[in-house]
Each structure stands twice: as C-alpha cells, then as structure tokens.
C-alpha cells in the first residue's frame, strides 16, 4: 500500500536568542518514518520527549521559536504533494480540514467558550465541505449520530456539555469533512477510562468508515495497544523503535521500549514494576552517542560515543540500538488486550 506521509530526516529545533545568548533545543532530531493509507500510527514517548513538537510540524503549526532546520515531511493527497514545512499559507489553508485535520490536546479549551457548537461547525467545516444550508446540516447531523451525539448539542455552548461529549464533539469537528489524514494529540488523556474506551472505539469506527490515516499521540501505552496498527517510540527527540503493535509489545528491540511495555499493569500480577533510573535528557544538551545510554542497563562503551542508526531488525520492525538482539521483554506475560475487543 502506498504511503500517505513520508518523513525524511526531519529536524526541528527550538531556536532561541535572548540578549545575544542563543540556545537550541533539539526537540525533533532526525526522524525518518512513513504513515500508510488507512492505518493508525501511534506515537509514544514520555513528556518533553519531542512528540508534540513532531506533530506540530506535521500539522503545519510551526511557529517561532520552533523551526524546521533539515529534512522534509511530504503528504500525498491523491497525487497532490504537500510539504507542511515549506508549503505556502494558501496551499495549507486549502488542505486544512479537507485533507488534514487535527484533534488537539485538551478538549476542555479547544472550543470557543462563548460560541454555540453549531457556529463552530460552520466556521470549521462549511468551506472545506463545500456544502451549505440543508445539505450541510444533514451531513453534520448524520455525522454526530455516528458519534452517538444528539443534534441538540449543536445548540449548546461548550460549558453545557460533559467532558466526554465535548471530546466527541471535537472528534466530530475533525472528522466531519472525511479528511485523509488526522492528527490526534492526546485525545483521551483528560477522560476517565470508561469514557476513554468509548471515545477510542468511536475514533476507530470513524477511521475505518472514512478510510483515513491517523497519527495518534499519547504517552499511555495501553491506549496504543488498543488502537494503533503500528507504534513508533520517541525518546529525546529521536525515533528509537517502530513496529507493528503486536510485535512491539511482544518483542521490543530497544531497551527503552522494553521498560515501557514492562510498566504496563496486568490483571493478577502484583509484582512491583521496575522504575527506570534517571530522568529524560535535557534536549538543549543531549548526551553524546545513544541518548538513552545514561539510563540504559545494557549500555556499553560504543553506546556512549556512537549514535545507533534506526535499522530494520525484523519485518516492519526498526530499532535504534547497538544491542537490539539482546533486548528481552522484561515481563513476558500475555499481550495487552487486542483492539478488536474494544469496538
């Protein structure tokens, strides 16, 4: 299957210059990956690992001090090639929502508090859909029905809806135009697990229905296990491992991934989870060599001086570790629940 997004050696730094002292924070450092048509690609990583900066680039929300210093990210929307790092504002405006939409972190604050939901739908979707009047409202109502929302929410203000409803409204806003590519940044983080499960199932259903590709960002590995087809792990601005979800959880090939998977709680297992020593590195002064080496139990001298490349270690499985063959799942219990059981 063809790729809808191709990212090549992307580097995006926060370049700051205060009173002559310049600083650069390498939030996205040399990421190469692709997203296929009709797949959900999960991106995982801890806070300040650069995952939000990465998707800011993908969403063409690059604002100073964030700057793309090298590489490219090219979308293929039915033959139309668009690179959000170089495209003109006009081109971007034209693809936004029609081809590329975004579900932002924090559904509590992404809707204008003094605007009715229906107005937001008009603002966001009327132009990309190219519909007006009755046809537009029928489309919106049908779409809301898919999200199990009554048409009454259109008349409501955001503060009159519950958190779960608001999240579904934002998903509705992002998907009503049937975009080919959806970026979802922590769409379920603020929700409790019951609502989270519903929202994930809805997102999955909508995605299957409109056959779009989704980049799904969250630090919650259990959510990835539920929803993603493939998962990429970002550590300190670098992609350290990428594999099909099942492979990643069953046989991680990077020690960091091994720890992430091991940290997942399992029913009936009361053993204490081993905590990873240390803190994520400061991206302004990342450690030389493999950025994970100060915390890595497998680190050898080579890790301290040479940067391990992201190489294919198995079918559709890439890892950036000098000792990837020696990585073992820390707890080889059963795989977290398959996403098929969610929907």
């Amino acid at each position, binding site marked *: 299957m063809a790729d809808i997004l191709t990212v090549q050696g992307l580097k995006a730094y926060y370049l700051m210059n205060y009173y002559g002292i310049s600083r650069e924070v390498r939030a996205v450092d040399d990421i190469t990956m692709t997203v296929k048509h009709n797949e959900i690609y999960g991106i995982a990583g801890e806070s300040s690992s650069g995952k939000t900066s990465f998707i800011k680039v993908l969403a*063409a*929300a690059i604002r100073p001090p964030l700057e793309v210093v090298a590489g490219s990210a090219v979308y293929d929307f039915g033959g139309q090639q668009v690179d959000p790092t170089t495209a003109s504002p006009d081109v971007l405006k034209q693809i*936004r929502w029609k081809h590329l939409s*975004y579900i932002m972190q924090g559904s509590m604050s*992404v*809707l*204008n508090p*003094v605007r009715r939901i229906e107005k937001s739908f008009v603002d*966001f979707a009327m132009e990309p859909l190219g519909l007006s009047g009755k046809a537009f409202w029928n489309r919106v109502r049908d779409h809301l029905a898919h999200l199990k929302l009554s048409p009454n929410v259109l008349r409501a203000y955001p*503060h009159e809806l519950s958190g779960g409803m608001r999240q579904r409204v934002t998903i509705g806003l992002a998907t009503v135009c049937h975009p080919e590519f959806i970026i979802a940044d922590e769409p379920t983080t603020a929700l409790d697990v019951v609502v989270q499960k519903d929202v994930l199932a809805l997102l999955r259903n909508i995605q299957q229905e409109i056959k779009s590709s989704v980049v799904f960002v969250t630090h919650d590995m259990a959510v990835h296990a539920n929803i993603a087809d493939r998962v990429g792990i970002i550590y300190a601005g670098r992609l350290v491992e990428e594999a099909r979800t099942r492979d990643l959880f069953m046989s991680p090939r990077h020690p960091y991934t091994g720890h992430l998977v091991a940290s997942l709680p399992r029913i009936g297992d009361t053993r204490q989870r081993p905590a990873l020593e240390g803190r994520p590195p400061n991206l302004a002064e990342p450690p030389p060599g493999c950025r994970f080496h100060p915390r890595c139990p497998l680190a050898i001298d080579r890790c301290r001086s040479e940067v391990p490349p992201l190489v294919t270690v198995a079918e559709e499985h890439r890892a950036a570790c000098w000792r990837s063959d020696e990585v073992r799942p820390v707890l080889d219990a059963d795989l977290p629940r398959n996403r098929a059981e969610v929907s």
Partner: protein
Amino acid sequence: MKAYFLFALKRLLQLFAVCFAGISAAFFISHLSPISPVDSIIGRVSGRSTYSPEAIRALRATMTELFGLDVPLWQQYLNFWGRFVTGDLGPSLLAFPTPALRLVMIALPWTFGLLTATIIINWLIGNILGGLAGYYQNNRFLKAFGIVAIGLQPIPHYIVAFLMVILFGFLWPILPISGGFAMNVRVAWTPEFVLSVLHYALLPALSLVLVGIGTWFLGMRALVSNIVTEDYVTYAELAGVKRPTILFAYVIRNAMIPQLTSLAMTLGLIFSGTIIIEQVFSYPGLGTLLVRAVNEGDTTVVLAVSSIAIIAVATAIFIIDLLHPIFDPRVRVE
C-alpha cells in the same frame, strides 16, 4: 428565561437601594455645607442698598421659612423625599422660584451629549484598534499608536484640556475654546445650530477622547494578546478558519466581555471627570451648574444635579448588567 427575569427584578431592587442611599448621602452632605443660601441672598440684596437691621431680620426669617430651612434636618429630609417621589426637587434657592429640575434639564443635554459621544468613540475605537493591535502585533501603525497611547494615558484630562486650549485657542486659534455654541446662533433645531454645537464641542470632546481612548486601547491589547494564545484560537487557526472570523468571533468577541464590565465601572468616573472639563471650556453642562450651585449654597440644585447623576450612572450600570448574560452565556443568573 424565568431565572433571568428574577435576576432582573433583584437587580432592579438593588438599583433602587443604590439610588436611595446615594441621594440620601448627597442630601446630608449638601445640607452640612457652611454656605447658607439665605446669607448669600441677603448679601446680594444688601450690597446694593442699605436696609435696617429689622428689615434684614424679617427678610432672613421669611427666606428661611420659604426655603423650608426652619424645621429640623430630619424633617427637611422627610420633606425632601415626600417631594422627590412626586418628581418635585424643589425650587432653586438662588434662581427662586425656578424649579431646580428645570435648571438641571437645561444643562443635562449638553453633558449627556458630550459624554455619550466621547464614551462611544473611546470605547469603540479604543477596543477595535486595541483588538487589532493585539492580533497583528507587528503592524507598524498600531505599534506607534500604542506608544502614543502609553504616553498620553497617564496625563490627567484637565491638563490635556489646558493644552488643547493653549494649542487651538492661542497658538493656532482655529477652534472655539469656551461656551456651547456661537453667540449669534438661535437655539433651535436648525443645521446652523447643530453645526455650531458640534464645532464648540470639538475641543472638550477631543480632550476626553485623547486621554480616554488610550485606556481602552491598552486594556484591549493586553486582553487580546492573551486570548490569541488560547487553545481555541490556535485550534481555529489550524483548522483554516477564515482570518476575519477568528479575529472578530474568536478573539475580539471574547475580549469584549471584560471590557463591557469595565465600561460600567468607568461610567461613574467619567461623570465626575466632565465637571472639570466643563469648567475649563465654560461648557453649559451639569458640571458648570453644579460648581456654581456649590459655591453659592444652592442646596436644591446641588441635590438635583447629584440625584440625576446618581440615577444616570446607576441605571447605565444596571443596563450593562442586564446585557451581561446575553454577551457571556456562561454567566449564571440565578
């Protein structure tokens, strides 16, 4: 909707309470004035010719009785409210027997016109320019406007008024600096009169606008530069929502809510501010009337002016309060 009417009713009762308390305070303060209107009339009368002490004593007794000052203060207070509820604010003591209310009504349109015009100009232009300045932070014209506003805003408006008088009255005498309209124009609804009024109002209005607009501009700019970083603005931008829609429906619309509240809060201040402006430009408004009445001890006129001012400011705030739930759907009215 029922909750809203209940809220409006409560707020109306509050309005009456505020007016009652304010007017009562004005009553006692004006009656505690050491300037006696009777003495000031006698002084005026006896200055022209000589009277026997008996005649003056008789005159004093008659005047005191006529003005209702011969009874204790609490009874004067009750009498005042008794007349007040029938719409009678008593005769002016110095322009006796012209009703004080008529004097107020002659002066009121001048002040009211000057005030409404400048408040609307200040609020609208200040907020629109401030909103644009907060949104287009690199625009050179708006940046320059901001610097001028910061410079002008802390100057008291009477100083600005004097500057205006010096600039446009003496150094470059192109605008009238005193009065409400040209001497040779008849007071009637003719184009000539209206133009003359506008011409004469230019300098007082300019003084109020120059100082007032900066406050709104700076406040709005600060509000907007905060709102543009809100998630819902970023999100709308990422969704490719049209720029004018974002600017007006997402940014300025939301910044207007606190600005509406501060409009209500500044109304009272502006009323007292025009008193000084009217003095500087000898404008025939309430301020000029009030200052003259205070100086001569005309308590009924002082009371009438204060009462009207209190009622006007309290009502304006009342109306803005009633509008608030309409502008901000999050406000709960129960």
